[in-house]
Structure formats: C-alpha cells, structure tokens
C-alpha cells in the first residue's frame, strides 16, 4: 500500500467536516450469536469530498454506511452530520434530517414501482409537503439524461436508467451528503461510467459530499480518496489512485 499511513484514527483532511464518525462500533446480535461488524471507526468526511469505501465482503462497509446515515444505530460511538449529533434525535427528527440533508442510491430496489419516473423523482419534495415545480424535476431529469422518460414506470427502464432515476431523486432535494452502496454493482462498465460521472459532478459542481461503497477499483478511482475497511476497522487509504493501484491494495487486504 503506497502512500498510506497504517495507523488510524485518521486526522481530518482540509475543509470543515460534513460527516464525522467518532469511535463507531456495531455488534449484531441474533440467535446464532453476536457479530462485531464494526469495531471502532473514527473518520471525518470533508465537505465536498468524494470518498469510496472498499473492503472484502463482510468487512462492514454497508454497516458503516447505514450507521453514518442514521439508518441504523451504532452500538457505541457518535455520528455528527453538519454539526448535528444523530444519537439524540428521535425517529421523526431523524427522518426530517434525512430528507433535508441526505440522498441515497443503492444497488437495487431504489424506486417505487407504482410511480412514474417523474413521480419517483418528485416524491421527496412531496414528502416534505412541497409541491414540486415541474421545471425542477425536468432539470434534474435532464441532468441525468432521462428527459424523455418522465412518464415511464421503473419496470420499463433498464437497470442503468433506474439508477439514474434514483440519482435524480437524490439530487432534487440538494442534499449535502450522498450515500451510495454499490450503486454500479449491477451495471455494465459503460453505464457505470455515466452514474459515477454524475456523482463526481455532484461533488465538483455543487459541493455535495459523496460516500460510496464499492467493490470495483474502476469505480473507486472516481473518488479522490479510497478508504479501506477490513474486519470492522479502517485499514488505510489511497488518494487520487488509479484503478490498478486500488486493485493492488485490495488484493493486499484480502490476502
């Protein structure tokens, strides 16, 4: 691993933190026994940064993302988003914070099958009680290259188009943080490039913060920083790395 300090917690990069994780642990308990999915993660995501999270399967990437986004409660530790500590919030406050500040894109099952593309994109606005302006919706649809597809339903779109609808939906509320869990996991490389380009654009143009979990070194190379997670712990990072460097680091980690 080139250019990587093996000791963590990592000191914050330049810029005010958009998202702060402080000694996060997560233990899943079930009948089969307890699993320590995260074992103490501390990290600052700088505002306007694009960070990829990589690691072997089962290393806790999805768990990290879910805890960071307040979808799941960490067992110990705190998460601070734009100065707000998630721990103290109740379900409704958390929901309101989520719809104002966060956008989500996952590998699949992102859209409501009963709604048209237009309605899916406009949904977050409607949920806040606002009437979506037609222009706003059209604008984000254009931004993701789906201007002609507003009337379609998700089942009538390809997987890549569906992901783009999900991104459009996340863009429309102008969230400060974007969470993506393997957003390109089910797509071919060409379509992946489009999706990643959109995420890249979000950080470059609008200053949104993107946290993306991925298995794909090519996808990770779109990020300015790649974080490596292993066995529930941060194991290192690479800045502005090429896919080849990232792949090499990954195979080191998996060994």
């Amino acid at each position: 691993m080139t250019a990587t300090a093996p000791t963590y917690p990592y000191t914050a990069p330049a810029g005010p933190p958009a998202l702060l994780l402080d000694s996060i642990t997560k233990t899943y308990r079930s009948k089969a026994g307890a699993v320590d999915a995260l074992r103490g993660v501390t990290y600052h995501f700088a505002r306007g940064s694009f960070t990829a999270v990589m690691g072997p399967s089962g290393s806790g990437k999805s768990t990290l993302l879910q805890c960071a986004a307040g979808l799941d409660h960490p067992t110990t530790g705190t998460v601070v988003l734009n100065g707000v500590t998630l721990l103290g919030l109740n379900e409704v406050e958390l929901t309101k914070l989520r719809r104002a500040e966060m956008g989500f894109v996952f590998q699949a099952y992102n859209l409501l099958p009963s709604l048209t593309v237009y309605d899916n994109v406009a949904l977050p606005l409607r949920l806040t009680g606002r009437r979506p302006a037609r222009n706003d919706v059209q604008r984000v649809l254009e931004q993701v290259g789906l201007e002609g597809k507003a009337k379609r339903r998700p089942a009538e779109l390809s997987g890549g188009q569906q992901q783009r609808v999900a991104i459009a939906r996340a863009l429309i509320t102008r969230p400060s943080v974007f969470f993506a869990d393997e957003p390109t996991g089910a797509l071919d490389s060409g379509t992946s490039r489009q999706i990643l380009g959109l995420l890249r654009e979000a950080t470059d143009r609008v200053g949104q913060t993107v946290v993306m979990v991925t298995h794909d070194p090519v996808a990770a190379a779109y990020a300015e920083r790649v974080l490596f997670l292993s066995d529930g712990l941060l194991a290192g990072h690479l800045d502005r790395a090429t896919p080849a460097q990232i792949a090499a680091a990954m195979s080191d980690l998996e060994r």
Partner: protein
Amino acid sequence: MFFLSRQTVGRHRSLYAGSFVALAVGVFLLGLAATATAATIAYHGPASASISVTTLGGDGTAPQNVKVPLSDADVSGLQTVLSMVGTISGFITVFVIASTFAFAVASRRREYGLLRLIGATPRQIRRMVLGEAVAVALAASLTGAIAAQLATPLLLRKASYTELAPVKLEPASPWVPLAIAVGAGLLVAMLGARSAARRAGRVGPIDALREASLEPPRIGPVRVVFGLLFLAGAITMLTLIRPSSGEGAVPLAMFTPMVMVIALTLLAPLVVPLVGRVWAVPLVAWTQVSGRLARSNVLAAPRRSASLAAPILAISAIAGSMVLSLSFAADSAAATIRDAVRAPIVVTGAAPVDRAGVKAVDAGVPLQVVRVAADYAELEDAEGIDPVIASQTRDLTVRSGDLGELTGNTVAVSKEMAGFEGYRVGAEVPVVFPDRKPVKLRVVAIVKDAFGVNPSFLIPLELAREHAPQARTERSFVLPADGVAPADLVQRIPGAQLATDWEADQAEGLRKGNRLGLVMLLGPAALYSAIAIANTLLMGSLQRRHEFVTSRLLGATPAQLRRMVLWESSLVGAVALSLGAAITITVGVLVRHSMTSGVADVPITVPWGILLGIGGLCLTLAVGSALAPTAYLLRVVAGQNAIQQGQ
C-alpha cells in the same frame, strides 16, 4: 399522502382487489339485511291483524300504548333472522378486512422502507395506508350498497309469505339503511386498516435494504394481551353453556365461537406455527423436498400463515359450531317431545270422541294471547286444555300448585316461563285475548317444561273456547280404551298416527326448520368466507412471483413448485380446520351437556355430511386458490425464460 395512496392502489391491484371484493360483499350483505329490516319496520298490516294494549307501567316506566301484531302478520321472526345475518356478516367482514389489510402491509415492507428512506415519516406512512384503505373502502362500500339496493326486491319477494314473514313485504326508502351499511363498511375498513397502518409505520428505513419479506417473528405485547383477554372471555362464555342456561345455549353457541376465533386469530402467529409443526410431521415424513419447503415457508412467516388461516378458521368454527349445536338441540327437543307424550296415538286435527275403543281424547285448543308486562306486551302461545284428560295423555308433572284448580280465569305456567318472569302460584298474569278482552289470569300451577308439546301457558278449555271461538284443535292425543291395541285403533281413526311416528315427524320438522335457518344465517357468511379464503390465498400466491422465478432458476421443476404450494396451502388449511374443529367439538359437547341434563336416552345425531362438507370445501378452496395463480405464474415465468433464451 393521498396522492401516493391513489397511485399505489392502482399498482397493487391484486392486493386490493381482495380487500375490495371482501368489503363490497360485506357491505352488500349488511345493506341487504338493513333494507329488508327497513321493509319489515315499514310494514303496517291491516288493523285487524294486531291488538292494541296498554302496558302496565311502574318501576319508573309510564304505561304506554303498543300494537302487538298477531301471528299471521308478525314479521319479527324475519327481523330476528336479519339481525343475526347482519351480526355474522359484520363480524366476518371486520375479520376479513383486518386480515387482508394486514396481509397487504406485510407484503409491502420493502416499499415502506424505501419511502422511509427517502424521507417519509412514520406518520406519513400510516396516513398513506389509511388513505389506501379509504379509497378502497369508499369504492367497495358504494358498490356493495348499490348491489344491495338492486337485490332487495328479490330478497323481499323470496321472504314474503314465508313462516318468517307471513305477509307481503315492499321495499322501503333505501337511504337510511344503505347509509348505515356504507358507514359500517367504512368504519370496518378503518378499524381493519388501523392496526395494519400502525404496523406499517413501524417499518424502518433499513427495511428497504434487508430481505424485506422476512417479517419480525415476535408479535406485539398488546396483541398478546388482547388475545388472552378474548380467550378468557370465550372461556367464560363456554362455562355459561350449562344446563341452567336453557334456551340461551343456542345464541351462546353462536357467539362463543366468534369470540374464540378473535382470540385465536390474535394469537395466531404463536398458535399457527405450533399446530403447523404437528401437522408437518407426517407431511415431511411422506414427501420429499416439497413437504419440507412447505413446512419452512409456513413456519418462517407466521404472520402470513396466520392471515391465510384466519378466514378458514372463522367460517369452520362458526359454521361447525352452529350446525352441531342445532343438531344436538334437535336431538334434545326430540327426546323432550318423546318423553312429554304419554298417549299412544296422536291425531292431526280433532279426533272423534265417541268412536269405539277410545277412552279419552285430549283435544287442546291452541291460541295466542298478548301478555302484558310493565314496559312491553308480547304475543304468547297458549293452549286451552282439560286438565283431567291432559294429565293422562301428556307429561304435566306439577312442580307446585294444583292443576285441579284450572277453571275460570286461571293459568298453569311452564317452569321455564315461571323462572323468567318470576311467576309463583297465586300471581296474576294480565293478558289480552284474541277477542281483545283483557283478563287477569291467576297462576294455579307451575308444570314441567315440555317444549314442542305444551306451550308455556295452559288455560282452561272453556276459557279458550270463550275468548277464541275460531280457534281449532290442531292435534289431539288419544287414549285407547282398556284392552284395545293402539295399532288397531290407529287404523280406524282418520288422521291418526302412532305417537312414536308423530314424534319422529315432529323431530324431522324441527330439523327441516333448522336447516332453513342455517341456510339463511350461514349461507351469506359461507359465501363471504369462501371469497375471503380464495382471496387471501390468491393474493398470497400472486405476490410470490419473484420467489418462483428464483426457485426455477435454481432448478426447481414446475411440478416441484406446484407440490410445494399444494402442501403449503394444505398445511395452512389443516391447521385452521383443526382449530375450527376443536372449537366446534368443545361447543358441541357443552351444548349437548347443557340440553340433555335431566332427559334420558337422548339420541345423538352428528351431521357428518355437512361438517365434513364444510371442511372439505374450505380445504378445496384453499388449495385451489393457491394452486391456480401458481400455475399461472409458472407459465408466465416459463414464457419469459423462453424469450430470454431465444435472444
């Protein structure tokens, strides 16, 4: 959120079609019962067909004028049946709606999770589910009401000039009854949707990311508490079915299963897997992989299985209990009649007294009197008898007082009636006779009950003749002279029957009457439950497209999947039916015990045909409506595979 509700209802048509049909049929039945009741209320027979009396008043009530219709214009029988039809339909509706909505919510966890993820609050989700319920309920209730309005004339035509309503009934103004039915439909839908909505509100955003169809296995403490409360209530009601409850045993036999069904449905997520495990033992032993899969599908989703089992449990328990109870009631009535008749010969109509070989003829005159009480007046059956002869031809065992004093303005009262009204020897019973003359009758004796042979009020023969000159003897009991064989005498008297034959005829008549009542009461409920059973299973199977596709890709053959669904639905059906059978048997045993105490040698008639028919029908419906959509889905899946391979 109403915007979303509208859209999702459209999309989840197969889920909501079930709720829609269930509710529309429920409102149809309620509406029909309501419009028909309105017709009976609106019915005013000719003045000659009723008697006006003034109630006694006292005990804080003022005397008031009431009109009591005579039996040839009495529609209260129909009213009673209609109110029972309404009750059963209402019950099944609440029940089916609650379980269809619960089912719809359970199969859409992932969708709610996604909505929560992109910013819907729990409250918005609840409102969305309720909004969907309102949309469906509104459409369904109006459909049901219109159908009820269209069917009302037909029902009234069928009901007119029957035993229940011996008059011609005309449709009354439909607005009020239909408004009640629609209102009830909306209310029921809201009640049914409320707990489903609350459960939907508890879905977290994380559920969008997890394998969402796996529901949390635990059931809420509130549900358990209510389940146990209802169970306690049902057990209390069961203990009330005892010899002292008399005629009350039959209504109890109707309502106890309902309470029991509610209890078991609330506890179903606990009970169904438990019973399911037992039934799965032979299944797993006899089949190969399909039985095992079916077992784990039923046990791993206890709530889903519970929703599927609920309507089968409801109808089998309620119908089974009623069928069995009424059959046992007829058995005990037959035994009572048998024991109450002492004369060896019964003649239809009046028998000639002077015929050779006849020792005595007990030709009672049946009539109806209006009994006037403090705040009501009621038509009662009475009979004018000659106490000397009648106490030889029938069982008139005196509990207190003296039958010999039955002359003039006197009456002998059956023990049960005396118990209800607190009559004692020496008390006065104010009545109005068919000739509109009010008379105060003095109670001279309390006699043993003999349903089907003696009415509750026995008056002197002369008194009956005086006040009801038109009344005719309908059946007479004949005592042969000493040394004359009844079998010979029967040949010589027209219309005569051996008492044993007559008793058998009476029992048969009772059963026939019961059958009619059962058809009227259970017919609509059974039809409704059939729809509900088909409905939940259809919905359930149509939701499983994804699972079937995956299984097919994994190499399961269509036959294996079909077998799996077959075993699954049979397993759910068997669980529900065994619970239903347990309720039926418990109620039946208690009813029988309560009715036969003090009567010896009561025959046992178990209507096996009907009971097994109910079970078989439930099972056939369950399996059929699970298999049909499965076969359809498998064909669709196969078609898609072929297309993909062709590309």
